[in-house]
């Protein structure tokens, strides 16, 4: 998919991970040190047990036995205490890193150019936000520490083996080629397999959601068999994916188990031979065999988490990839010198103008073919035209959301592209038909555009759009939690919130993109009154569904096929007898 958001490459991921490690040297050192000490303490018992066996076979005093057992007990207690603090240290580090990762990701999303979101769709971004952050969270919270502990334990056991008797460590090395080859084979295939498995599983989940949400539609269109078939197809796909990974494990696990078995048996047999030859004591061989047996658990865990690491790495690559997308507004931005040379905005008339602008969502497919439009300050300009004619695109260019691929959009002579967002929004704002209520309180939803605004101004903004009465009547008034999972608002109320935001943001020019179109016409009437309050004294460019707005506008621009085909007052256009006049007549009856 050429439209999908990019994914970071391996070098970028590695650089980022190195940078993360550099950011937390002390936390990392603490976690590593404590885990190493804990694992070390756990290794003393087999050695002491070996001594015990040796001593018993030679007939030592009961007090010696008591002393050795007391030492074993002491080390168990020490290990338990160390494990507790080691776990806390690595959790502290993990949670901090994880918080940084997700916060940086959300900041990258917030900085994402809208054109990119439009092109890739929000689906991909939502998947990254939920699934990839979750996968990475698993890696950082579990796979990271577990692998760390397992690797340290393996190293320490090998060290203990060498200390017990250098020769006795050699048999354990026999496992290395077996495990190396097996793991290599497995890791080449596993991540893809598990990703496919997870994706197939999500398909099942999504399919059920769809079936549940569409139960009435299914009944109306008599599609029960099709929903059933969809479920069965998802199940079959999931089973195919599961079978593949099961096949991988069926090959790899026995090989790995054999790999764990070899050191123990080899240490016992070869060590036993050494013992018979008099090169090693009974205690040494016993301890070495127990150590070799103890290797199983950490190696198993180490290998078990490796594929999780690969999945986490892939997720990280997708999260970092979001930042790799260049911002078209920045790309189109003027050099600092040019910006400095342009006249300041303070005291400007707020004259917005588009000159010969073109725009393409996909290269080579221009949606606008050289449009020039100069709204007069304070006028109300309506844009009408069929769907797909380019009205919304022109609206976004005028609002500075997109930068034109050719031509310029300026306010008082200064290009919108490259203007800092905070300044741009004092000039022009865009309200689209997608009214979104953000998770948070009602007051937050209005105040978000002006964080410094005091509560009185928020109330004033709500009052200006006739929303204060119902807002105060909510369970917790302006502090009522709204948005997903909060108190439900009607579409009309949501739209009033969007308008209240505008009042507070207070730009001199507004672009309204079919702002009342999704609302029942009967509710729209009340809303238009609120709207009138917002529009007072501003330049308004309204992209209209309903012809009333066109009728009431100072001028009407008819957009067709990426061009402005008619421009003038309602009466002029009706008199001219063009396409607008035809539409008006059919509508007005």
């Amino acid at each position, binding site marked *: 998919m050429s439209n999908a958001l990019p994914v970071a490459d391996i070098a970028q991921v590695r650089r980022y991970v190195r940078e993360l490690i550099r950011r937390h040297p002390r936390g990392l050192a603490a976690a590593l040190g404590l885990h190493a000490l804990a694992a070390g303490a756990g290794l003393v018992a087999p050695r002491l047990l070996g001594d015990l*066996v040796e001593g*018993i076979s030679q*007939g030592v005093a009961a007090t010696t036995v008591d002393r050795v057992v007391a030492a074993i007990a002491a080390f*168990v207690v020490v*290990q*338990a205490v160390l494990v507790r603090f080691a*776990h806390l240290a690595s*959790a502290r580090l993990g*949670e901090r890193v994880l*918080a940084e990762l997700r*916060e940086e990701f*959300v900041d990258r999303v*917030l900085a994402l150019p*809208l054109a990119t979101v439009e092109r890739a*769709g929000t*689906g991909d*971004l*939502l998947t990254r936000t*939920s699934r990839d*952050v*979750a996968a990475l969270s698993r890696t950082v919270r579990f796979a990271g520490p577990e692998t760390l502990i397992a690797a340290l334990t393996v190293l320490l056991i090998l060290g203990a083996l060498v200390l017990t008797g250098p020769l006795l460590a050699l048999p354990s090395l026999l496992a290395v080629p077996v495990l190396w080859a097996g793991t290599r084979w497995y890791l080449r295939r596993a991540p893809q397999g598990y990703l496919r498995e997870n994706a197939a599983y999500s398909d*099942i*989940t*999504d*399919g*059920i959601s769809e*079936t*549940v949400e569409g139960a*009435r539609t*299914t009944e*109306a269109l*008599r599609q029960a068999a099709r929903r*059933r078939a969809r*479920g069965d197809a*998802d*199940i079959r796909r999931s*089973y195919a994916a599961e079978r593949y990974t099961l096949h991988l494990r069926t090959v790899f*696990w026995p090989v790995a*188990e054999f790999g*764990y*078995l070899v050191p123990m048996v080899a240490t016992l047999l070869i060590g*036993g*031979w050494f013992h018979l030859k008099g090169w090693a004591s*009974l205690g040494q*061989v*016993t301890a070495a*065999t127990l150590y070799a047996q103890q290797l199983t658990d950490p190696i198993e865990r180490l290998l078990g988490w490796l594929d999780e690491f690969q999945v986490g790495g892939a997720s990280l690559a997708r999260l970092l990839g979001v930042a790799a997308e260049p911002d078209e507004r920045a790309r189109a931005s003027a050099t600092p010198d040019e910006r400095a040379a342009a006249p300041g905005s303070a005291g400007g008339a707020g004259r917005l103008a588009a000159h010969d602008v073109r725009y393409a969502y996909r290269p080579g497919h221009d949606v606008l073919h050289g449009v020039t439009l100069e709204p007069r300050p304070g006028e109300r300009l309506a844009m*009408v035209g069929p*769907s797909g004619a380019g009205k919304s695109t022109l609206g976004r260019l005028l609002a500075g*959301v997109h930068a034109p691929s050719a031509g310029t959009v300026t306010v008082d002579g200064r290009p919108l592209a490259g203007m800092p967002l905070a300044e741009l929004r004092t000039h022009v704002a865009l309200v689209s038909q997608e009214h979104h209520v953000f998770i948070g309180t009602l007051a937050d939803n209005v105040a*978000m555009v002006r964080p410094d605004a005091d509560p009185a101004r928020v109330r004033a903004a709500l009052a200006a759009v006739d929303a204060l009465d119902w807002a105060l009547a909510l369970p917790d008034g302006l502090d009522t939690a709204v948005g997903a999972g909060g108190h439900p608002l009607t579409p009309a109320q949501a739209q009033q919130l*969007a308008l209240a*935001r505008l009042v507070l943001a207070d730009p001199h020019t507004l*672009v309204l993109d*079919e702002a009342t179109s999704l609302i029942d016409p009967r509710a729209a*009437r009340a809303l238009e009154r609120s709207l009138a309050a917002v529009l007072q004294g501003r330049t308004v460019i309204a992209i209209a*569904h309903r012809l*009333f707005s066109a009728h009431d506008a100072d001028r009407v621009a008819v957009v067709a096929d990426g061009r402005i085909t008619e421009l003038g007052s309602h009466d002029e256009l009706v008199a001219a007898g063009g396409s607008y006049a035809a*539409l008006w007549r059919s*509508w007005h009856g």
Partner: protein
Amino acid sequence: MRFSPAGDPGTPDARSATRYLVWLAGRHPVIFGAGLALGVIWMLAQALVPAVLGRAVEAGLAQRDPDALVRWGLALLGLGLVQAVAGILRHRCAVHNWLGAAYRTVQVTVDATNRLGAALPRRVAAGEVVSIGTADIEHIGGAIDITARGAGSVVGIVTVAVILLNASQPLGLVVVLGVPLLMALVALLIRPLHRQQAAYRDSTGRLTARAADIVSGLRVLRGVGGEPVLSERYRQRSQALRADGLRVARVESLLQAAQILVPGVFVVLVTWLGARFALRGEISAGELVSFYGYTAFLVSPLRNLTEAADKLTRGHVAARRVVRLLRLAPEFTDPATPVPVPAGPGELADVRSGLVLRPGRLTALATATPQDATEIADRLGRYADGDVTLHGVPLRDVALATVRERILVADNDAQLFSGVLRTELDPHDRAEPGAVAAALAAASATDIVEALPGGLDGEVAERGREFSGGQRQRLRLARALVADPETLILVEPTSAVDAHTEARIAERLGPARHGRTTLVCTTSPLVLGHADHVVFVEDGKVVAEGRHEELLAAEPRYAATVSREEDR
């Protein structure tokens, strides 16, 4: 062991959660039984390792017997191989048990949902059913899967206890009595951990929802701003989650320490007693090694048993939810003796409002409030009970399947399903060549298909989310036209499209439904102007009928409803 993932699920036993789980396990008796047997063999092979190791130390090393050393060394190897083979076979059975239970639950859930149909939202919260798909199938699969390992663990613990009791009664007793004590201790710690973990999961879910909220609202943000505020708020929540994570880690770290300390103390006790007995010559040095090995081994089946108890509980809770869904009944059932409806177009009449749809005509319904329109449409389509007759036959006496076949209600809440667009528009693959194109043209939706990569063969994402509200509405209209029912009831089919498009649809709708019975609920003058007949309803009753122009002239309330000029 033939395993068919998507075969006929059969009739689930919905009498209780336990019976449902037993029914699931019984679907694949061979795999289930083999899993149990392999679980036992696998665990026994592990349980015997310390015994063999002890013999090797004793007979081979301490007695300096090379033959015995090799013999016991090879026995150890053999035991390891048995464990590896039984382990992977057990795992294969476990995966199939898991998948079989999960898949079957998916199938019965989909079937139950389809059976409930339009009644579903009134019977159960959608989230409740969706969570079957997101969480419950995992828990149910887990409950069936854990049986193999659980059974093996019980046998493993019993075997070790028997061996120990035979070797030394006091030592054996320590182990037999110590094991349940250990389990209880660990279980005590696990409960608060689960509470903390559940809280952490909830916070994670809320934070993810917040991030998704930002993504969904991105277009709005780009228009008016507010990014720094949202970023800051997300950061606060994220830091709160970090604190939650540390709270979990604190409990977790205690549990981990306990998992070292509790079995460790046990090992020390057994070793100490064992060493004393060995000194007195009651057991050999090799047996001491075995004792140490047994106590170390017991940690694993103990952990399995704790996990089994947990998974069976969760599985039971999940199965309860599934059973609850399976036992729900749909709102309308077929009458005992369905009355046949004469073939061909007939009058459809709603007694309460007085609305009569004459066959073969395009009727428009304008209502003063939107609720009136949806209530009438629901009654006409028998989504709500009411005195409605088709061909003079009360709908109550007609088989529901017949009603659904002859009358289609298409509203704006209708779902666009994901999949290939052509299949979505023509799910029964019955439309004649050109019918889909004609329906698309009538719904003024041809441009949407042209813009979709792959055209009619392109994929629609879930809920048609890549389309705008107006595009989705036009595609829904096209789908209803392709279905070509005898009677089509459209609720506000053009509320989200622009005036140009609305004009085109209004013009084309009549010809597209030529000869069929159609009702359009709308207040748009463009659509009303093209209807054969317009009915105006106020307070649930028909108050005026006629052509659009006549009503405009004669009925001021109608004029006020359909035209907003009055307000200005």
